[in-house]
């Protein structure tokens, strides 16, 4: 089993192999070492890794596991392999019409700074009011339609300026 984890905001690749009683663990490109976890009551556990052993206390909140060991608390996130591998949904700079319709309101103009998820335009189509929201943070380059105008499917509605590359 291989997992990408974030431990205290640093990414690691952890690999575990072997049958349950003789498992081995490798972190990033390090050496495989025998590993064993013995669970006890109340989220306490004993971890043996290579020659050393340590008592830990664990608590889970959402996707994050908090681990208390060595008089410190470590926050550990397991990164989802699909998300890790996925590209961002929004590649271009243009928001397109999901269906033909009419523009009801426009809330931004060229030059407006927008946050991710901010509503920029409301369109009406087939009795539904849909908000066209900013897919990412950025600046509006162009609004293609005024309130009252009609458009076809996939028409460009709003274009953001190109993402500034760092």
């Amino acid at each position, binding site marked *: 089993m291989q997992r990408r984890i974030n431990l205290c905001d640093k990414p690691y690749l952890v690999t575990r192999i072997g049958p349950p009683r003789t498992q081995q663990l490798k972190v990033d490109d390090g050496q495989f070492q025998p590993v064993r976890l013995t669970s006890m009551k109340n989220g306490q556990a004993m971890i043996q890794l290579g020659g050393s052993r340590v008592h830990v206390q664990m608590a889970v909140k*959402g*996707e994050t596991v908090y681990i208390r060991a060595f008089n410190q608390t470590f926050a550990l996130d397991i990164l*989802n392999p*699909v*998300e890790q591998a996925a590209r961002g949904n929004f590649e271009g700079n243009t928001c397109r019409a*999901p*269906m*033909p319709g009419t523009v009801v309101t426009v809330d931004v103009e060229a030059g407006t700074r927008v946050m991710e*998820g901010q509503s920029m335009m409301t369109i*009406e*189509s*087939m*009795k*539904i*009011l*849909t*908000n066209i929201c900013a897919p990412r943070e950025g600046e509006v380059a162009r609004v293609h339609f005024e309130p009252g105008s009609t458009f076809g*499917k996939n028409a460009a509605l709003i274009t953001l300026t190109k993402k500034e590359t760092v």
Partner: protein
Amino acid sequence: MRRIKSKVNPLSSDFCTYQHHNHTLLEKFHEHQHRARVDRPERDVERLKKQNKLRVHDRIDLLLDPGTPFLELSVLAANLAYGGTVPSAGVVSGIGIVSGLEVMIMASDSSIKGGAWYPLTVKKMVRTLDIAIENHLPVIHLVDAAGAYLPLQSGLFPDRHMAGRMFRNQCILSAMGVEQVALVLGHSTAGGAYIPTLSDYSIMVRGTGGVFLGGPPLVKAATGEEVTADELGGADVHSAISGTADYAVDSEPEGLALVREIVGTFPGRAKKAVEQREPEDPYYDPRELYGVIPDDVKKQFDMREVIARIVDGSRFHEFKPDFGTTVVCGFAFLYGWRVGIIGNNGVLFSDSALKCTQFMQICNRDQVPLIFLQNITGFMIGKAYEHGGITKNGAKMLMVQSNLDVPKLTIMTNGSFGAGNYAMCGRAFDARFLFSWPNSQISVMGMEQAVKTLTQIRLKSLERQGKILSKQEVDKIQEDISQDYLEKSGAYYATSELWDDGIIDPADTRKVLGICLSVALNREFGKTPNGILRV
């Protein structure tokens, strides 16, 4: 399975506006529900006391296992009929746990017109027994009904799904091996006499219980014979002489305890063998739904936000996420059971309909029950879409959906208009259960379009009669038409007419679906062997 990442911001102004709007709707709903359950004219309450009878909900309380849930169905049936004088249509029905077994309870409420059957009473009772048949639920009948409400008899007596259907359903249940227990707590006359008599076990309460085809006044009129109700068909007569009933008891509590004892002898039900995982609460608080559902039926919302507040751990595997994006399909777990979910995120296009069709085939092959979350204004119209076969592709969705073997559960979350209602498993498509949220609307077309069309028709016809109308008169006509249309497309009208199994608090959706799913698994569902068509 990945957790849905909510994009809803509980601090945003939209969230607060929506929340306020939905809280107002919810207050009204709770008030309606309370009135239907509790408010009765003083004299009816007094009459029950004098007869030594318990109120219907007190009877049900004594019947149920303490601390277990009771899913009451169609609480607001008939709320907009008969001038509001027959709350809950005069009968309480619901699913509860008695002696450890899931059962259907059907109880007349004799505090309303002596428990008389109105057309909607009969519709509710027939539906109740249909649910028992579909989900193999033993039925407990608490019988205390005066019989048909005579002034409206033509609306409840002879047709296929009217009163006779109840008795037919009882006979079908019997043959299926689904047990029925009746407790007679009042006079049960004419057709009503068959309910306890067709049950496997029938208990009568001495003094108040009576079963006869014709009551004493009718006997006197027909034959001249003078007889008291007890001599004619009381508890002792039927349990000792005629054998029409099986047990006589001295009081209601004794009778209810005996029902519990009888149900306790029934064998436990084996549920359909499907994998069940450890249940997990949703990560996102279901009460946040009040801030997700908009204050206007026309405003769009992301159905994933709803799914995130219903399913285990808010985890969802979305199927074909980049195709036909106006519909969301995917798998989740609900109280540990795997379910398929189809929810609308806009109007149905050909590609969205095809995605649903493909997904439903997978669910059916893999025996995964389906949940439909309806918010649908219909199928896309226009030349390009007709040329693209929108009607043909919608028909594929209907064809597969109608013929699914797996149980279907439907929730009306917002709008339900036109053929979209059908494709998304509306009432006519035999969802095992269908519930509405208080904000939901349902009609053959959206309100604005319908009112426009109806007004035009009315004006044309007046024109033909040579009437010339002032602007005010035209406005008045339009206003009247919209008022009527609005009422008849609202959730309260739908539930009044039993187009659903009740209105529910959106935050309870998970629990309600959980009970329905558990019940639906009481029956084996078959499987039509088929490969999946990538339509």
